[in-house]
């Protein structure tokens, strides 16, 4: 495992830089986008009141000062108090994070468990009915907008077939429709990519050699194909997790799922800077952690990567 520690160290430094950049961009964009104070007060509030609230929130300070305070505080895990909820932003976001993780991880696991076998089978039975059918479904999954799929699922599987609740969070049945909605795109992308990665490997010389020495097809796939096809699959899987976080915004709204995606959108409308900053920071952190994990898996899968 020589070279593995510097490899990790380099990844950590990159992750920290990415986090700092994300926080800074959010800080600047939110401040460019408008003043939260008129939204907090009644429309007929006097100017003195507006000035007072602005002072209370620290918005009367010059931007560099606000930025300095902001950076110092996030190093202490403090994102300030939510302007809208009047409680610490971190605890607001924490209240929503569980729901998003539950939905996101379910969708992610579901997508992977369904898509990888389908992609593999499609590749092995290339040009069969199964291949054509599953790739057609994947194409739909990849191109149908999330809100459309969500509403369609509600109307068909909930209202008409009466299988699942229409919306809200509750037991496992509440999770099925939003998880499939959210996972659809990832599922389709992973299935298509798995298929092409496996096809590419199946065409390689060493597979022909394996077949030529009389190995069974199952053994060829299990021993030689999967591991070699894994790198692009792991890559797309890691990237899809980011798409899932983005898709959560729409899915959570359609299914009134109390997660951070919905919180982020509402907080943007409310100009609730601290909550937006905290939500984006945590989403970025999740994404970075996942990609960090993907990098580690690469290193384990392919010794050539950690050598570089």
């Amino acid at each position, binding site marked *: 495992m020589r070279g593995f520690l510097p490899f990790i160290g380099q990844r950590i430094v990159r992750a920290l830089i990415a986090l700092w950049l994300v926080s800074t961009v959010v800080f600047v964009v939110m401040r460019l*986008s*408008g*003043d*939260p104070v*008129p*939204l907090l*007060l*009644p*429309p*007929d*509030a006097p100017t003195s*009141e*507006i000035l*007072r*609230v602005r002072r209370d929130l620290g918005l009367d300070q010059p931007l560099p000062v606000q930025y300095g305070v902001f950076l110092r505080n996030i190093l202490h895990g403090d994102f300030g108090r939510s302007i*809208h*909820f*009047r*409680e610490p932003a971190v605890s*607001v976001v924490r*209240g*929503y994070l569980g*729901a998003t993780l539950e939905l996101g991880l379910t969708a992610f696991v579901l997508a992977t468990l369904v898509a990888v076998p389908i992609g593999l089978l499609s590749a092995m039975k290339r040009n069969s009915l199964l291949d054509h059918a599953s790739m057609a479904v994947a194409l739909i999954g990849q191109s149908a907008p999330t*809100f*459309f799929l969500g*509403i*369609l699922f*509600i*109307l*068909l599987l*909930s*209202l*008409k077939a*009466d299988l699942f*609740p*229409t*919306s*809200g*969070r509750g037991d496992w049945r509440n999770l099925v429709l939003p998880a499939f909605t959210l996972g659809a795109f990832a599922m389709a992308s992973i299935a298509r990519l798995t298929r092409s990665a496996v096809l590419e490997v199946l065409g390689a010389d060493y597979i022909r050699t394996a077949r030529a020495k009389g190995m069974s097809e199952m053994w060829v796939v299990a021993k030689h194909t999967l591991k070699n096809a894994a790198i692009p699959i792991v890559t797309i899987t890691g990237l899809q997790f980011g798409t899932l976080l983005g898709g959560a915004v729409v899915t959570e*709204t*359609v*299914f*009134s799922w*109390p997660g951070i995606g*919905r*919180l982020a959108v*509402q907080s943007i*409308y409310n*100009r609730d800077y601290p909550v937006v900053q905290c939500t984006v920071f945590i989403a970025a952190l999740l994404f970075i952690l996942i990609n960090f994990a993907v990098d580690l898996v690469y290193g384990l899968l392919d010794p050539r990567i950690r050598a570089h």
Partner: protein
Amino acid sequence: MKLTRRELLEAVVAGAVSAALPRSAHAQTTQKRELAVAQGGDIAKFDPHFSTASNDVRVSFNLFDNLTSRHPDGKLYPGLATEWGLQGQSTWAFKLRQGVKWHNGDPFSSADVKSSIERTYDASMKTMVATVFTTIDRIETPDPFSVVIHTKKPDPLLPARLAFYGGQIVPKKYLESVGPDTFNAKPVGTGPVRFVSWVKDDRLVLEANPDYWGGKPDFDRMIMRAIPETAPRVAALLKGEVDIITQLPPDQEDRVTANSSTRLSGALYAGLYVLGVNSKRPPLDNPLVKQALSLAIDREAIVKELWRGRGIVPSQPISKGDNYFDPSLPPLAYNPKEARERLKKAGYKGEEIYIETTIAYVAQDKAMSEAIAAMWKDVGVNVKVEVIEYSVRAQKSREKSFKGLWWGDPTSTLGDPDGMMWRLLAPGGIYDYWRDPKFDELGNAARFSVDDKFRGECYRDMTKIFLENFPWLPIIQPYEDYGLHKYVEWTPNPNQQFEIRRFNFKFRRA
């Protein structure tokens, strides 16, 4: 044609729901002990003095009681006060209900009333309702069940003010012992429901107050859910997951009425949807131009096409249902020919006139803007429609920097023109872009008079001045529609109070 996301959704819903229907006839009675309601957004705050948002007041008017109560019939009824009367010109005396207990068991008394009303305008409290009781000079509590309120000048509308927001009575002792943050997190009121638990953006659980002075409500528990998208909200109703949904747009009503177990119930909004006018900006400073703009709007078509008939064409700045509404006035006229002539007479030279529209700040605002712009182009107005976001609208409203016209939904808070036309168009009001000395004199005189006949004359004259100057262009007085199961007997309140007290809500039992 370019489809918006919402239009696409609606088309999908239309197709799939009609496929799903008709279903077997559902029972029109129920044994339910739990009322489930879905609204379009979640609650932000429980402390009734810190929010006037409709999603919040639907709950806070049920957790808390006011001294007086405006029922869905528009009249004032006793609340925590059993009777009240004017003593002289500027003193109101209230008799309080005896034996009322707060949800935590503390007894209710006049001290709660005094501290609660004083809290609204206490500068150090920074409430959202600081301007509601500005007419009050001082409050006396001669005994635990009497409250005497002295106003600075005669205030004929004090009992009406007490019925609306800001007027919810909060517990002095509990509030002082736990502080405002805990009070907001664990509210204690005297109302028909008690707070149990709340998961943000998911569900609020309330339970019936068995000792409520107005009788225990007709359920054991009440669940308030937030379902922001319309199509899933309607689906939740049709599937029976919730009993009542709020904010049902006209284009979704067929789904509710076509279903055998659900129905529609609407209340004519206590207020108007208007285009505010920045009358300081040429050419909108010319009354003839504004008259022409009004004459060029085919409001009948807007009501019929965009609202599917769920609204009425306004005739005046006073909303139908309010004091002094003049039923003899005709609906605002549509006459494009006359509009062209007045534009000519005004010397209009094709200057740009802007509509700064929001999307869904008021229902259908963008669609109405586009329709109106087309009507104005027909008479030769050079109109530009620009879309602005809520926070930009809020900022422009505060800075009074609108470029031309914008959407607003003036609410009649008191069932009286003083609580709408004069509250909003008076100097310093949020629509203060136009002044007329006579209008101002009449508005002030009516505000401080307890002479009913005199007030009626003032408002008649103000209406006349208004209709020549159009500081607003009233467009529609819409219905606010709700979807409900047929086993629910409930009447919506025009002023957005979600009234579930015994007199207004019951489940139809077998």
